[in-house]
């Protein structure tokens, strides 16, 4: 155990791939607070956030065979799982609140996409997103930051900024659309507005 604690994240993942459960415990000790902080920001409930945190690490354990250190680092992978799980949980909780007597599926058990699909290393992705964020309007950027980084809901953002709920949603959607078109390497996705109706 003491030796595992001295290993890098990627070495721990290798041990985890070889079936050493202790490596999962070390990763938990190392990143529990990071994952929990993300979950707390989004689901806002300590118990739910703890549950999301545990689920994220168990997701990592189950999907460890897919991990490739050449495509991204462990921390980014964990954060992706954390955001994905937290957003899913929030959605699930809101749906359950709406349909009080109905059981709803929580959603996907894994992130929808593999990490580093763009083929970019983490610093490159970071810089690209920063530049893309700089290209957004102040309103779009502000709404996206509050939604994604602070975990605020559209209503909370509307209350904070004084804008209407619909306007906040519009800034959010348009901002994401623009970011997507700037970041994506696929020319077809550069502008979805030009694609017409759904199939």
């Amino acid at each position, binding site marked *: *155990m003491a030796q595992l*604690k001295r290993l890098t994240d990627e070495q721990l993942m290798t041990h985890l791939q070889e*079936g050493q*459960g*202790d490596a999962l*415990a070390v990763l938990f*000790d190392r990143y*529990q*607070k*990071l994952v*929990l*902080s*993300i979950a707390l920001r989004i689901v806002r409930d*300590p118990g739910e956030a*703890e549950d999301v*945190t*545990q689920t994220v690490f*168990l997701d990592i*354990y189950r999907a460890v065979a897919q991990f490739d250190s050449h495509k991204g680092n462990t921390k*980014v992978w964990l*954060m*992706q799982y954390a*955001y*994905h799980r*937290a*957003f*899913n949980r929030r*959605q699930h909780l*809101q*749906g359950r609140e709406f349909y009080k007597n109905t059981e709803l599926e929580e959603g996907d058990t894994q*992130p*929808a*996409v593999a990490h580093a*699909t*763009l083929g970019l290393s983490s610093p490159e*992705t*970071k810089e690209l997103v920063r530049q893309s964020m700089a290209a957004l309007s102040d309103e779009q950027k*502000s709404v*996206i930051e509050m939604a*994604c*980084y602070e975990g605020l*809901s559209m209503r909370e953002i509307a209350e*904070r*900024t*004084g804008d209407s709920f*619909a306007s906040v*949603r*519009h800034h*959010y*959607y348009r901002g*994401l*659309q623009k*970011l*997507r078109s700037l970041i*994506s390497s696929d020319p077809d996705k550069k502008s*979805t507005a030009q*694609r*017409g109706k*759904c*199939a």
Partner: protein
Amino acid sequence: MPEPQQRGTTEHEHYEALCALAVGGLLEGEELVDSQAHLKDCGECRSDYLDLSRLITLELPQAQGAFQQKLAEMRTNPLPGSRQSFLRRARAEGVVFSPEVETPARSGPWYLRPIAGLIFVAALIVIAVSLKVHHVEAPDTARAKDAAVTQNIAELERANSELTANLSKLKQSLAMDQHEIQNLRSQLGNAATTAENLRRNGEQSSSHTVQLLDESRNQEKLLAEARDEAARSSQLRINDEASLVEQQARITELSNKLRIASATVDQERQLAAAGKDVQELMASRQLHVIDVRDTDPNGDPGKAFGRVFLTEGKLLTFYAFDLNEGSVLNTKRGFQVWAVPETAKDSPHSLGFLHVDAKAQGRWVLTVEKPELLKQIGAVFVTAEPTDGDKQPTGQKMLYAYLGEANHR
């Protein structure tokens, strides 16, 4: 509620907007149900959903300020027992842990914690100051941004006070750790001294061991030599014993031969002497040969009898036969022969004691060569006397023989 038609968006844009909200977990009510139902049927929207999911779960978080991330992380406190709860759940899911996992890990090297805290506090102060400056230099910034900055400052100040408290605790922890280090150094010093002593003792022991080994080798060499010598001596002793046995056998053989030879010589000498005596007796003149028979007090003839050969003035030989040997030997007595002079018949002279000449034949003999005495002798007789002899006869006379005149001239 969505208002796609009012915004003039297409149906796809409407669902794309719902996708963006769904990915962030921001949909509520009917919109949530509507978007989920649409996603099941529309592959293009599912693709958009995946892209947007990647954007907000992977790419956007990477662009978040590391400081904000770290701040949020530091301000997060897991629920008590969350680690144990996770381990239990993981075990239930089939994850196998070693027993060591039960011990919670420290979040980092102890000595980095105070330093990290100090650096973080300094960073907070710098950022707080810069935010305030920014606030002064840009008074016309949007109201929402000002509110956010003000809130950030308040949070940072609160974080600063928390961190100051943490710093105080860390200082205490540092002092305790330094004390622990001091103790450990002291223990290390003692251990080093002990190790040095052990090393020296080990060297001395090694030297002594080498010396003992040399001595042992010498002793073994001497022992081997002694064994060889003992083996040689043993072989020699065996040889000597064999030789001794052989010599003893030879001696025994020679002794037997010598005894036989001696006996033969003695016998021959005796025969020669006897032959000479016989020859001289047969050739002598003035020879008296008298047979004598004993009688009991009643005059009846006894068992014993004798024969006397006298060469006058020269030699007397008295043979006695069938004497009652038991009557004298048991009382330490012997048969003493007496000579009766012709001139003094009452003063017999002792001639000596008879000795056994031929036991099987019951023959006794006494030879006397006393010329002067033999010139005067008139008769001889025998008495039983103590073996040390007596001046005068005390026992009963036996085998009395009167010599008379020579009957062989």
